[in-house]
């Protein structure tokens, strides 16, 4: 297992931290690493910073996450990877659509030529606020920030022709709604999917969708590719391998 030393731990909000580490591998936006917290387990995490230093941004929702957000400078971060494909980088105007922790994997894409639509549960969930403030449209479930509603409520007012590419990442149901909204329009769009991931090297079948392994052939798929994936937005396998139908 590889390891790097942690060089900074930045609190983004109550439960979300960005952990910077000193690694010299090359990585592209959208790629992920499998982070091992000895004694706690291993999880896939997208790189929220892909330059130097690299970072992961994690919201703690279990013991492993709690241990991770409490990592101190100088501790070792164990990981394997980077794994997976990446978002296509384009010169031009970018529309970034995120929900929940989806913003972490797209953070490296945010620049002066991008607009972000971000869906939050409520206003206090926001992270990367300094970078987002001037270029983001927020939607919240409770209306505590931005538009009350979901990403589609913001998206329908956007002039899509202005954008050279649209990047999407968030819960599959949210991505399915964006996909449905975009699928008949003439747009270039890429979606970063998330499923149960165990091996991350294309053999355990946990993260598969319509015969394709997210970990090796994904996690980023073009809208055209998604059109060929009948499982997208419909069903996925649980950790045990049980088919679960995604609630619509």
């Amino acid at each position, binding site marked *: *297992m590889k390891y790097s030393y942690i060089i900074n731990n930045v609190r983004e909000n109550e439960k979300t931290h960005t952990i910077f580490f000193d690694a010299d591998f090359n990585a592209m936006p959208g790629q992920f690493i499998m982070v091992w917290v000895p004694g706690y387990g291993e*999880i896939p995490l997208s790189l929220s910073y892909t330059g130097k230093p690299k970072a992961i941004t994690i919201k703690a929702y279990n013991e492993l996450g709690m241990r991770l957000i409490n990592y101190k400078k100088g501790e070792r971060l164990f990981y394997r990877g980077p794994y997976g494909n990446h978002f296509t980088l384009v010169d031009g105007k970018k529309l970034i659509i995120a929900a929940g922790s989806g913003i972490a994997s797209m953070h490296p894409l945010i620049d002066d030529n991008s607009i972000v639509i971000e869906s939050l549960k409520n206003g206090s969930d926001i992270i990367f606020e300094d970078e987002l403030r001037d270029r983001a449209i927020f939607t919240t479930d409770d209306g505590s920030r931005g538009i009350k509603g979901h990403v589609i409520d913001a998206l329908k007012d956007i002039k899509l022709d202005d954008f050279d590419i649209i990047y999407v990442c968030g819960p599959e149901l949210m991505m399915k709604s964006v996909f449905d909204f975009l699928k008949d329009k003439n747009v270039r769009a890429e979606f970063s999917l998330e499923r149960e991931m165990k091996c991350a090297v294309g053999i355990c079948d*946990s993260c*598969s969708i319509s015969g394709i392994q997210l970990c090796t052939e994904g996690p980023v798929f073009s809208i055209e590719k998604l059109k060929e994936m009948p*499982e997208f937005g419909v069903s996925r*396998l*649980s950790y045990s391998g049980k*088919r679960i139908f995604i609630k619509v």
Partner: protein
Amino acid sequence: MDISCKIASINLKNPLILASGILDENAYTMKKILEHGASAVVTKSIGMYERRGFETPVIYDEYPYFINAIGLSNPGIDAFSGEMEILRGSNVIGSIFGTGPEDFSYLAKRMEDYGAIAVELNLSCPHVKGFGLEVGSDPGLVESIVSEVKSKVNIPVFAKLSPNTHDILEEARAAEKADALVLINTLKAMKIDINARMPVLSNIYGGLSGRSIKPVGIRYVYEVSRELKIPVIGVGGIENYEDAIEYIMAGASAVEIGTGIYRHGKKIFSEITNGILNFMKENNIESLSEIRGCAIR
């Protein structure tokens, strides 16, 4: 040239079968593997009830090692009906695991009802307590499981045996009523990370597969083929056509490919098929039966 093969009543277009445990949990993935040229797929091992399996990390890979401890995670035989329904009409071999003859025969019958062309009895998972190795290393239990399953289903029954033994022939003879033996399952193994000072796998122990274990697999296939008449399906470390032919020359009727996919992708099935055909052409071999077991002395 003829690369078809027959195991019991099953005719396969080529001798390359997807091994249990690799890309065989989701029906759509299994369909994709068949499209890539596998002549049949063996499902992930399915038990009586849903089982989460072990927590991550469940694999450790560092060439030439590949160690896994998925822990027989599976949705249970009831829920697996959905996957089998999607696969109906395809060459699917149902892998099953249990604690004794009742479990195995019940599961086998269900697999038969689901349309499986054969069942593979997982008698040898090396890292789950109460299943696998503990079942497979008791010859009396193996014999009663095989007998019971054979009496309950009409489809062929394959018994997958463990290499973690000092006497494979005793084990093989216990399973001799099966229609074929599948040799070998993984070798019980582990990895410690010296910087974390801890075993990497959450279950500590896992099964070593891939490149490293081929000489052990070849030896078991050879030893059993030499002594017994029962057909053998070879598995362990097959990454190219030479490996597949080596197993066939050791006596294998067919081979299963698993970890090889990790390094070579799903195209491994068509690549090995082409490799075998080229080898046969260069060596004037008309049918695999000409070379099956030819190395046995």
